[in-house]
């Protein structure tokens, strides 16, 4: 897992995004148990305190919950996951619109290019 982090943004935020992505994509299943902070830190090769901070952030967002003696779990709230999935999608679309307009494409041109690409891929 080495070197997958961009070094100019806080690592804990990158970990939060990594987990978010894997939760909304279904890679981490609803209600499943997370490994211990220590094991996760080793897997990502980061400081345990950094991992702890990322998990605390996910808890605040409600995507992860802690049970006193047994550990941390992925939320069972499917609606929250759906909402989070949509908001991640919105961010990606915003990025697309921003970048296309910075290249000088009009909205209509951007949409046309997008549709064309999707049709090519589905052939």
């Amino acid at each position, binding site marked *: 897992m080495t070197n997958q982090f961009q070094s100019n943004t806080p690592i804990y935020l990158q970990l939060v995004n990594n987990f978010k992505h894997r939760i909304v994509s279904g890679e981490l299943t609803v209600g499943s148990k997370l490994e211990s902070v220590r094991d996760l830190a*080793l897997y990502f090769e980061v400081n345990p*305190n950094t991992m702890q901070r990322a998990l605390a952030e996910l808890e605040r967002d409600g995507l992860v919950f802690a049970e006193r003696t047994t550990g941390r779990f992925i939320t069972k709230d499917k609606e929250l996951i759906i909402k989070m999935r949509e908001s991640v999608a919105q961010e990606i679309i915003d990025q697309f619109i921003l970048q296309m307009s910075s290249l000088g494409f009009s909205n209509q041109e951007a949409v046309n290019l997008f549709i064309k690409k999707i049709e090519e891929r589905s052939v």
Partner: protein
Amino acid sequence: MNTQITNKPSDAKLNLLNVSNLSKMYPKKLALSGINLTLEPGHIVGLLGPNGSGKTTLLKILAGVIKDYNGTVTINGIPIGPETKALVSYLPDNSYFSPWMTPLNMISMFKDFYTDFSEDKCLEMLHKLGLNEKQRINTMSKGMIEKFQLCLVMSRKAMFYILDEPIGGVDPAARDYILDTILSNYEPNSTILMSTHLISDVERIFDTVIFLKEGEIVLQGDIDNIRAVEDKSIDQLFREVFKC
């Protein structure tokens, strides 16, 4: 440099390390000038600074190797001395082995010296790093000696690890293994203070960094807060702060 991101003040009794107004004068050179520093248990701290900024001097004082200094230094509330040496596992910047020795000789010495030393752990690490416990030190390469020294130091169950340039001479593959070793052997309640020049290789394992410049601390704080405030990697920031 106007960013001073300080850790929140806490009860002095809880601090692992308390350094106040520490200065060290070498003949014709001020190595450390009025250092104030506190570290809590449970952190991995990077001590960064260019050559001659005082890193090794500071670490030697904390390890109890340099005894003539001004100011007060306590570890776990105890002034530096024989008692604190038992709490500290120190990796010096150069090797202290005699050339005729083998790792086995050293391991038995460490077993005698330190009750918190685990021989099994040391041998396991040694083998993983491709070393042979029966090979004489004077037939080992610089990198092999460094690896072995780190095995010894990390095989103690200490409260405070002080590592002076632990990965300087080792190849990148072994470097990754060593960083993993540090992470996996690190006890949640112990603290590791580590100096290095290879910032980009190790910055992911730090949670706190200290920048030392001409014997003074110019920046200290939580590494992710610094990244967020500066929007830079620690490596980039270092290059800017210490631009020649």
